């Protein structure tokens, strides 16, 4: 003890210990009092996960309150990826191949790769079990639960999926749903719909979204409000308990203008007529061509509001195929159904030369600008010569005025009108007012605008693509062809029905609407559109006027006079033989549009009944011959249904007469 006393040495120890405790107290104060708020946020995020619970979508009802698209519970086999990763590799592989074999045995053919792909899919929330196979049978669920020890990490969950009460009918209208893609998720992330209470319907990486038809167009209404479940998780990422749960709420129901029974009739008529037509032949000046009748469309509108009552297209698809995720194989089949795609709604997307149905536009233009009156006659000699070029038609009608020219579909009379309006854009302007050359604004996605070329359009097309459009100049011949709905014009069936609807109602072109109104979630079914009971109605889709065609009596009367006769003594007389037109007079026009090297496009556009128009109906059938051969019979069958008249059969018709 040379340098310091024992007491001093103990004091040194004491000071060190005091220093240590002071440091601990200071640190404790710092962490729990000063830093706590910041660290608390970090700790909470660390411990809880918010899981979105998908809500059932709203239903889709027809105009009479019949449920077209409903929901049902589907059984989904899930695998807990976190737990699976902890299994040794050989056990994991064995489990996956055993699952594939079991699914296949129980009637859900499944490849090992399909399961592996789902398990590797980073789009799924890592915390939640990954769905590997959807829509399994009750038997399989029972089997899996009875053999649970053989299937570690495997579970069965229930999810709400679409149920289509009318099968494939109306598929092009209602559309289908599917899992949201990464790109779509990015796009819609910042603009989700809101439910009636103003709650945003946010999307998650595995959300379902409308991909076609009304499902897509009314996504913001149909999508339900996801619930949220805040789950507390432990250090091993296992859910421990639910901290809070907000139940999902179903989306709003949507009621269509579509009459599903009429829709069924229209689709059946279209399909049956195409079937009957297919394989026949068309003989005319241009030779003999086979009627392949691969596709077509039919539209029924309410001319007084633009309400779409039926919208048929062929070929079509079964939306049920999309319910549990469509296979690539099936999707490829749909893209190539007898050489054409079944996923295109030809009623709004298909563009066709309107043929003689376009004479409505030419006649209106000529009457409105005073070029002719209803009584102006012209000598139809069967040929019209302009600029040294002969334009021919089948048969000659002698001196005829406009009504007769429409009834018998005299091309020469309209060649003459077209040549006299050459140098103006009267026909194009009138066409635009009838609703051609632009999208109608129908509440369905992927609508085509069609086109009605002006001289300026033709030059622009030539400048852009000289191979397809070899001439930049507008010839009188172009005006002559345009007058009978050839070459320079292409329209969609919905535009055509809208134009004849305008003729029916005195000149108003409405924006067509498939959806009539949006109803409350879980609304009462069976309430038709006209009902005074509107308690469930959230929003009504009001008629929108697109454009107005000038239709003074001097214009409308001669046209209606001519078109009224088409189904009696005119071009469609044969197609309407036996149809009681005293009870239900039909005003219409046949059209036959030439397509290079193929049988003609058969077109018919109409409205009925003549005195108090309620329906505008148009049909277009590809490679099916004259308008009277195929399109007119489809329309007739629709009217049989609408007028409550006896149904007649379908047969191949070969009128042998153009137009």
């Amino acid at each position, binding site marked *: 003890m040379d340098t310091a006393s*024992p007491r001093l*040495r*103990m004091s040194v120890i004491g000071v*060190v210990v005091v220093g240590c405790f002071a440091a601990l107290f200071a640190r404790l104060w710092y962490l*729990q009092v000063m830093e706590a708020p910041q660290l608390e946020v970090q*700790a909470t995020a660390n411990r809880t996960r918010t899981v979105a619970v998908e809500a059932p979508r709203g239903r889709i009802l027809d105009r009479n309150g019949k449920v077209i698209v409903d929901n049902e519970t589907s059984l989904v086999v899930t695998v807990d990826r976190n737990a699976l990763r902890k299994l040794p590799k050989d056990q994991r592989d064995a489990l996956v191949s055993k699952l594939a074999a079991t699914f296949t045995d129980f009637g859900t053919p499944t490849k090992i790769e399909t399961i592996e792909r789902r398990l590797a899919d980073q789009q799924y929330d890592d915390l939640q079990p990954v769905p590997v196979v959807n829509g399994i049978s009750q038997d399989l669920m029972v089997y899996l639960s009875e053999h649970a020890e053989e299937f570690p990490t495997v579970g069965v969950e229930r999810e709400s999926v679409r149920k289509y009460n009318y099968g494939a009918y109306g598929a092009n209208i209602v559309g289908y749903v599917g899992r949201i893609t990464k790109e779509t998720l990015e796009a819609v992330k910042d603009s989700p719909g809101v439910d009636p209470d103003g709650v945003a319907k946010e999307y998650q990486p595995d959300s379902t979204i409308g991909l076609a038809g009304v499902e897509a167009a009314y996504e913001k209404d149909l999508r339900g409000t996801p619930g949220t479940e805040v789950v*507390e998780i432990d*250090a091993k990422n296992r859910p421990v308990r639910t901290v809070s749960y907000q139940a999902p709420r179903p989306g709003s129901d949507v009621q269509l203008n579509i009459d599903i029974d009429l829709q069924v009739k229209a689709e059946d008529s279209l399909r049956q007529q195409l079937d009957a037509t297919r394989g026949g032949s068309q003989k005319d000046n241009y030779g003999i061509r086979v009627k392949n009748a691969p596709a077509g469309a039919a539209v029924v509108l309410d001319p007084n509001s633009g309400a779409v009552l039926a919208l048929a297209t062929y070929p079509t698809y079964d939306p049920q195929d999309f319910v549990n995720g469509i296979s690539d194989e099936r999707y490829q089949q749909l893209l190539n159904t007898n050489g054409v795609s079944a996923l295109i709604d030809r009623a709004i997307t298909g563009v066709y030369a309107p043929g003689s149905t376009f004479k409505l536009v030419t006649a209106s233009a000529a009457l409105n600008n005073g070029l002719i009156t209803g009584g102006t006659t012209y000598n139809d000699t069967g040929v019209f010569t302009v600029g040294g070029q002969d334009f021919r038609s089948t048969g000659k009608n002698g001196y005829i005025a406009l009504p007769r020219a429409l009834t018998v579909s005299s091309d020469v009379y309209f060649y003459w009108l077209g040549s006299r309006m050459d140098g103006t854009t009267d026909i194009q302007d009138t066409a635009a007012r009838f609703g051609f050359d632009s999208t109608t604004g129908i509440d369905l996605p992927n609508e085509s605008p069609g086109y009605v070329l002006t001289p300026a359009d033709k030059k622009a097309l030539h400048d852009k693509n000289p191979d397809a459009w070899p001439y930049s100049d507008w010839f009188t011949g172009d005006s002559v062809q345009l007058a009978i709905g050839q070459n320079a014009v292409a329209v969609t069936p919905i535009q055509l029905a809208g134009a004849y609807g305008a003729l029916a109602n005195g000149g108003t072109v409405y924006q067509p609407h498939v959806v009539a109104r949006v109803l409350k979630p879980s609304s009462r079914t069976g309430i038709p559109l006209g009902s005074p009971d509107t308690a469930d109605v959230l929003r009504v889709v009001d008629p929108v006027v697109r454009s107005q065609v000038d239709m003074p009596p001097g214009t409308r009367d001669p046209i209606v006079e001519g078109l009224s006769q088409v189904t009696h003594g005119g071009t469609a007389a044969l197609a309407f033989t036996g149809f009681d037109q005293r009870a239900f007079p039909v005003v219409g026009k046949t059209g036959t549009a030439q397509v290079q090297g193929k049988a003609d496009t058969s077109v018919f556009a109409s409205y009925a009944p003549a005195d108090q128009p309620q329906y505008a109906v148009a049909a277009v059938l590809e490679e099916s011959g004259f308008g009277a051969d195929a399109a007119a019979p489809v329309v007739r069958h629709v009217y049989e249904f609408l007028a409550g008249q006896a149904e007649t059969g379908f047969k191949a018709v070969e009128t042998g007469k153009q137009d």
Partner: protein
Amino acid sequence: MLPRTISRHDSNRSRRDPTAPLRHLDPTLLVCTLALAAIGVVAVYSATRGPGPNYVDSYLFRQFAFVVVGAGVMAVFAVVDYHKLHDWAWVFYGATTLLLFLVITPLGSQSKGAQAWFALGPFQLQPAEFAKLSLIGALAFLLSEFKGDIDLRRLVALLAIAAVPMALIMLQPDLGLVLILLTITLALLVVGGVPGKYLAVLAVVGVIGVVGVLNSPVLAKYQRDRLTAFIDPQNTSKEATYNVEQSQLAVASGKVTGHGLFQGPQTRLNYVPEQQTDFIFTAVAEQFGFLGGATVLLLYALVCYRLWRIAQIARDPFGSYVCIGVLAMFAFSVFENVGMAMGIMPVTGIPLLLLSSGGSSTITAFAAIGLVLNVHMRRFR
């Protein structure tokens, strides 16, 4: 009737004798010790019962049993005159050294990367914990014999006595316990009268030897990590970071008043690894907040103060040295363990005496407190 009279006389005398040991029991030290052990039982249960339902209570019962046994051991170590223990110091030292040797033979068993345990049925005996006490005994014995007169030869002898158990424990390996023994040795060398120049040299050698190598910027981080991982395989660097992060979040989560018993989310959901042993303080701090954490620290501070005070008032140097040794053991255990849980000390797995789950450490802590009570009780005779 003489024997009766003597007997009565004896009993009367013992009741009145102002130097009777039981009259000088240190109530503060006893109460603080038992309070900490009780808090420990609750904290261990809260840290191990799991998120539920089906709470785990095996740790609760084990720790409770250890505390009961520990209290008994404390009584024994307090009642038997420490001067007798003084005579037995070398027997304890020898026995412990033998056990430390045996534990690294196949007789011992391995767990969490260290060969440190004897498996005794459902219990595991960790001889290194007892080595703390026997080293205190041996060094206190020697220092009291040297009576403050320490030359280089005696210093080497002291260091050798300390080095044997340290080397054996290093072979397990258990860095935390080695550090405790080092601290105990250092403290005893300071109070035992080792000349300042030697202490200075020892300090310089120690600082250069340990801190210098581990924290040298010459070594890349991964190399340092490898070094510490080699020394202490229980804590690889990534895990260590996670542990410390989670434990600090747990402490912070308690704020001023805490979440309440069984309500601390970090604790309940097992976010803090090894919480019932190395990170037991976080269970207290999260559930009872700053008030609870500070109370526990205060209890430890009181314990340390009493240990220090009893060292000063002890009757003889041996008693004094024992107290300082126990003080060093407690103070280091608290500072390193709590400091690590709050991120101001490096991660080394050592138990928080009296609070952490574990039989050997709990019983050793009680025994140590018993010794100090003993010294206090017999300071007049």
